[in-house]
């Protein structure tokens, strides 16, 4: 198998091309997880991967749907094939989700993710996380991880369980201290992933108001709200109009393009209206979904011919290029091939698809 991998360097430099247009693709949110039965600690870990599998099975085209057994633990070869050999991805960002209360060795820790960066440094970046509930010790861990891995971003899962606690908020006092440390170290991209639980549990765990407050406090950090705030798209759109340093990661929104294309069209139309084309970033959430079909369908995407979509601004090739890779490349200082720089040279930067109304 190894022989095949030697060709990736060449293949990886060939950009995805359709109708004589080329696209540089950054997958800003993907995983290398281990939810094998051997690594699963308890019923919660079992329930977590089953829930993930239903997202995969419900929204993937049949030919890209795996068996549950394979889905629990896939290989390095699967990733290299699905992302770089056939998936049109040029650079991938491995996000770490520890879940050590659910899985003996964690779900996908920075240690596991970084094995891929070590082996394929031109293909991957990896982000670690922090847990503010570790308080002072957490700041030390953050500093140590940064020295070791040098990541430019952190991935934070606010619904992560830790003993009795079932979550935290981004503007909790110890979280703010960790973010101060990120700023000091030069970790500038803060990926926030909301889940179903939080403290206190009687509040809406998906609410992104804490991101709003925190983004105001740290104007020099970029806050990437994963899955564009879904299921609170409206709250995310609202804070996106208020905070220039808030970005949207399209993981989980992308796959609707196949199973629920009208809904995808509505989401992307709303996002372009409120957030604009410079702050949205493609992500597959691999292995939940595979980038090949997501990239191909997005490049081909047009709004349905229906009055419902008449007042959404057109999604041009330029906009698709930005979303598929150029926006993430800007946040992560990823070198963009010269031909893509030429392709974008003529377009005005910061151009917004449509001016959002200011409901304030």
């Amino acid at each position, binding site marked *: 198998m190894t022989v095949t991998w030697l060709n990736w360097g060449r293949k990886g430099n060939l950009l995805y091309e359709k109708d004589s247009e080329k696209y540089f693709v950054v997958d800003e949110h993907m995983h290398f997880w281990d939810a094998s039965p051997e690594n699963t600690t308890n019923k919660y870990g079992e329930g977590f991967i089953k829930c993930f599998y239903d997202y995969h099975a419900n929204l993937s085209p049949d030919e890209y749907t795996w068996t549950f057994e394979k889905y629990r633990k896939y290989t390095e070869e699967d990733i290299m094939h699905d992302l770089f050999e056939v998936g049109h991805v040029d650079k991938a960002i491995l996000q770490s989700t520890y879940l050590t209360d659910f899985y003996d060795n964690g779900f996908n820790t920075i240690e596991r993710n970084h094995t891929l960066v070590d082996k394929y440094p031109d293909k991957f970046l990896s982000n670690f996380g922090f847990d503010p509930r570790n308080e002072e010790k957490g700041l030390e861990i953050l500093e140590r991880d940064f020295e070791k891995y040098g990541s430019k971003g952190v991935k934070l899962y606010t619904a992560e369980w830790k003993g009795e606690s079932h979550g935290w908020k981004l503007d909790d006092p110890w979280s703010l201290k960790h973010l101060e440390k990120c700023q000091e170290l030069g970790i500038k991209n803060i990926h926030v992933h909301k889940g179903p639980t939080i403290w206190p549990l009687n509040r809406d765990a998906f609410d992104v108001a804490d991101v709003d407050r925190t983004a105001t406090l740290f104007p020099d950090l970029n806050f990437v709200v994963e899955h564009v705030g879904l299921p609170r798209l409206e709250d995310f759109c609202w804070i996106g109009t208020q905070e220039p340093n808030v970005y949207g990661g399209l993981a989980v929104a992308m796959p*609707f393009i196949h199973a*629920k294309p009208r809904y995808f069209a509505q989401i992307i139309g709303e996002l372009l209206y409120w957030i604009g084309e410079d702050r949205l970033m493609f992500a597959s959430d691999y292995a939940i979904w595979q980038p090949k079909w997501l990239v191909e369908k997005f490049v081909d995407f047009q709004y349905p011919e229906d*009055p419902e979509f008449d007042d959404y601004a057109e999604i041009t090739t330029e906009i698709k290029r930005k979303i598929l890779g150029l926006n993430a490349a800007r946040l992560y200082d990823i070198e963009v091939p010269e031909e893509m720089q030429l392709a974008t040279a003529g377009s005005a930067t910061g151009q917004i698809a449509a001016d959002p109304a200011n409901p304030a």
Partner: protein
Amino acid sequence: MPTREAVLDALSGVRDPELDEPITDLDFVSGLEIEDGAAFVRLRLPTYFCAPNFAYLMVADAKAAVLSVAGIEQASVVLDDHYASDEINTGVNEHRGFDGAFPAQADGDDLEELRTTFRRKSFVSRQEQLCRALLSDEFTTLDLSDMSLEDVPPSRDFETYLERRAELGLDIGPDAPLIVDPDGNRVPEEAVVQHLRFARTVRVSIEGNASLCRGLLATRYGIQDKKEATA
């Protein structure tokens, strides 16, 4: 003896607070047995990790709805296949309240604030749905901003809008303006377009979540997604 239809009809009055649809339409009711004035209801949700606060509300509301049926003296409602099934089922059926069901994880004993937040979203979404229909029916935005409730032609969308509006305790009298914010304040004419633009985002979000949840439930239980064909 109370009929199955009567109990199901009562359950159809219980909505998923996030999705703004009846739990019966969402296929969340997976079992119903009635025996000598006692009803036993089973509920299921799209995922093992659906937010426990909304799950608790649906179980509690289902129990109250079933008990409202004439002739039902006892009701037991059980949520299956959820990470917090035990806490929720015991909490609701033993009247412990949400903080009693999740000690140390909640900072209050009720979920009314959460419920109100989502009633406001539902109201905004239903208002947009009604106004969109009216706008495609020859009315202009200017017309809408001048209209009172008595000027609105009857429709299913209008009925639903009035129900959501009444739930928030807002004026539903004939003279009350059609377009008000969730606090009941009339939206000024110059702000109506912007108001409806954001309302549209709320509607897209709620409808999209409902569509996703139907799909996940269908996948999880190997059943037909009732609305897939029209999604």
